[in-house]
């Protein structure tokens, strides 16, 4: 039984969840949380939505206030980075030179934005949407009539386009691929989102590669392979990269994320990792995955914290994420694969439909739902059951999916 602290490197959503669990399971645990931002942990989904539109929208991101961390005796070291892990002495070195010993260390270092790879003229401000500071800066810049160029047609880019459009800006979205959401979504969903944004007045430029951002007269110029686009505000949303350097420097296994097993363990029995920085073994998918989603930040640290306290619990969830754009809700569960047979349930022109992906055995492997949240509860259970399903029934919107669960 170690009385040394439980140290959490990182102070985001995953760190909060780990601290909550450590305290709930061990009233005496000494918990230290170290994060380089000066603000308390926050949830990110609203950063690209409500937080871009109002201060009120931003407030919702803070799930726990300072009083909670105080009452729960979480030793918060904010505005401080963990610079190094000294595994031999079981301690971390902070950016102010201090050393903190750990009995168990959790790496919850998250991700950072992928920077725009092209040339950027001096004096041109590129906005990103990753931190609350990013969201505040963009919110301050957005105002009616401003020309906003969004670089990237993934979920973040689309959500920012929707928010800027709601703020009465003139929005151009620039995406090098020939369709949106290439990484994660079936074609029907991408086409639907494309049509939705066009209908909302967003100038959609697919198959257009941004090459550089130049400084014009009082505005920015996005140079693309299809000509220049003038903008007052340029927002980049081209993905994130996991913050693995700390783990890597400490000699822990890293491969597009910090490699952990299904119990959130690294190769060092005293060091765990959780949240979207992890390349974790998912027993349901039978492979390692890194998943950028609220779900992983919410649920994986709970397992990691339990195991830091001596449990041996697996983290096993089907990847699930949602995106809200305008009044549209998109959700996806499971991972789509080219080998899947896809079934369309509902008519996209009605504004509500699902794309269901069946594996070789005819069982549900993934689903994407557009304004069809009512089907998600049943899909989750059908996916977990793994039984072959009747394609005719899946396609028939008169058949409630929940009736197929027991069938």
């Amino acid at each position, binding site marked *: 039984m170690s009385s040394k602290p439980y140290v959490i490197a990182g102070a985001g959503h995953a760190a909060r969840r780990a601290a909550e669990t450590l305290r709930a399971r061990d009233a005496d645990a000494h918990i230290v949380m170290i994060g380089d931002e000066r603000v308390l942990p926050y*949830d990110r*989904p609203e950063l690209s939505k409500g937080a871009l539109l109002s201060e009120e929208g931003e407030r919702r991101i803070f*799930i726990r206030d300072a009083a909670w961390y105080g009452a729960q005796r979480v030793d918060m070291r904010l505005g401080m980075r963990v610079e190094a892990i000294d595994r031999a002495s079981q301690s971390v070195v902070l950016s102010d030179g201090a050393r903190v010993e750990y009995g168990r260390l959790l790496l919850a270092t998250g991700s950072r934005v992928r920077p725009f790879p092209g040339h950027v003229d001096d004096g041109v401000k590129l906005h990103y949407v990753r931190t609350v500071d990013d969201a505040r800066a963009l919110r301050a810049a957005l105002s009616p009539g401003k020309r906003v160029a969004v670089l990237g047609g993934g979920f973040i880019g689309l959500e920012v386009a929707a928010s800027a459009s709601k703020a009465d800006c003139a929005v151009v979205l620039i995406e090098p691929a020939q369709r949106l959401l290439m990484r994660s979504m079936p074609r029907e969903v991408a086409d639907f989102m494309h049509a939705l944004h066009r209908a909302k007045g967003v100038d959609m430029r697919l198959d257009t590669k941004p090459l550089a951002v130049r400084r014009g007269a009082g505005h920015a110029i996005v140079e693309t392979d299809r000509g220049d686009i003038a903008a007052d505000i340029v927002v980049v949303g081209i993905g994130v990269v996991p913050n693995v350097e700390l783990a890597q420097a400490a000699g822990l296994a890293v491969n597009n994320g910090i490699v952990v097993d299904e119990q959130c363990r690294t190769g060092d029995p005293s060091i765990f990792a959780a949240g979207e920085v992890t390349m974790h073994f998912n027993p349901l998918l039978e492979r390692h995955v890194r998943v950028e989603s*609220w779900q992983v930040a*919410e649920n994986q640290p709970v397992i990691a914290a339990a195991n830091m306290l001596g449990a041996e619990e697996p983290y096993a969830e089907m990847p*699930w994420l*949602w995106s*809200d754009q305008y009044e549209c*809700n998109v*959700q996806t569960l499971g991972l789509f694969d080219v080998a899947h047979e896809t079934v369309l349930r509902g008519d996209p022109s009605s504004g509500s439909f699902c794309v269901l992906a069946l594996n070789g055995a005819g069982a549900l492997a993934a689903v994407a739902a557009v304004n069809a*949240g*009512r089907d*998600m*509860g*049943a899909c*989750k*259970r059908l996916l977990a059951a793994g039984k072959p399903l009747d394609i005719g029934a899946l396609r028939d919107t008169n058949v*409630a999916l*929940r009736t197929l669960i027991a069938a």
Partner: protein
Amino acid sequence: MEQVTNTWQAIGMLDDFMEGEPAAVVAGDKPVAVFRIGDEVFALHDLCTHGHARLSEGYVEDGCVECPLHQGLFDIRSGAPRCAPVTEAVRSYPIRIVDGQVEIHVE
């Protein structure tokens, strides 16, 4: 013009409501999600406290309804939050069953 709303209002017969299939009704101008559990009926305000989802479109299991948009859980009997991302209770309305008729009390 002010209608007396501090009364019980009929929203259907018990047999109109099916276990596992929440119903959306309007009572006193308020959207209400109605749930049947066994021979009991419960009513919640039909709007998730987190997003803007209709709980009447949610999945019902183990006395809870799962929000269709972000999968938060509410206790059907009390409206209490049971699972993130929901943290705030949803309003629960009193229900009574009189001679097989389901009545709701909204203010």
